[in-house]
């Protein structure tokens, strides 16, 4: 059964312009705000995941063991970790009660296919991030340079 809220959203989508012709830069700018209508979850802290250039979203109820690696959508072209904070924080709180780290997806043009050149383990280095290694400042600078159009609105829920 479709909820009244879902019907309202469907109506918004139905009336929105479809297949808008925009260049890549404007597509990405719009993509950063694709989830502005969604609500912010409560009781979840948010911090950068330096080791994967992503974000940690950790609920208070975290059991300290499990984690979700969240890979966002956007057709491999738009979106970024900061634009997905609401979604990333909702996911662990409502479902698996674990921290959630959406690493960035290399965005074409100019990036290799996922995992095409660099080998990465799916074991998320929780402890390494929590220690805030000496390179943290440099990594933060890299992070902000990489996602200049991203929202930096949520430090802690």
């Amino acid at each position, binding site marked *: 059964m*479709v909820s009244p809220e*879902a019907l309202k959203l*469907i109506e918004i*989508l*139905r009336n*929105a312009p*479809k*297949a808008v012709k925009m260049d*890549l830069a404007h597509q990405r700018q719009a993509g950063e705000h694709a*989830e502005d209508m*969604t609500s912010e979850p409560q009781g979840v802290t948010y911090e950068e995941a330096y080791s994967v250039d992503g974000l940690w979203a950790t609920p208070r109820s975290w059991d300290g063991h499990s984690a979700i*690696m969240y890979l966002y*959508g956007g*057709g*491999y*072209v738009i979106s970024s970790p900061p634009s997905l904070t609401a*979604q990333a924080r909702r996911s662990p709180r409502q479902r698996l009660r674990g921290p959630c780290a959406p690493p960035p997806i290399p*965005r*074409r*043009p*100019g990036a290799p*296919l*996922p*995992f*095409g050149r660099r*080998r*990465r*383990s*799916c*074991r998320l280095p929780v402890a390494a991030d929590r220690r805030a290694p000496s390179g943290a400042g440099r990594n933060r600078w890299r992070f902000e340079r990489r996602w200049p159009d991203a929202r930096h609105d949520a430090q802690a829920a």
Partner: protein
Amino acid sequence: MLKLRDDGAPLPAGGVPISPWVDLACTGQTLEINAHVDLTVTKASLQRMAGQYLHGADPRTPLASPLYGDLSGLPPLLVVVGGDEALLDDSVRLARSAGMAGVDVTLYIGAAMQHIFPI
């Protein structure tokens, strides 16, 4: 996950693809069948993004389109998709291929639902 498996790296306990796009060659039948009910995703927009992402690479290369890869040895999958999606066929074919490759896979189709509806 295909790359992790091929490298012998540790795999996650499971995967939950939500409205996955697993065929960048865009051959799914629902791209046409559901074109009139999907409110956000069109075949034209997918083809444009595929071109931007692939940058000349083969759209059927398994690292970009796992539907054309060997799915055996993957962890359990829960595939979630909306029934009114142009990408419905990507999920159906992913579940079919994974199941035939011996993967524990569950396909959930939300009737009348749109792209990435759980989110």
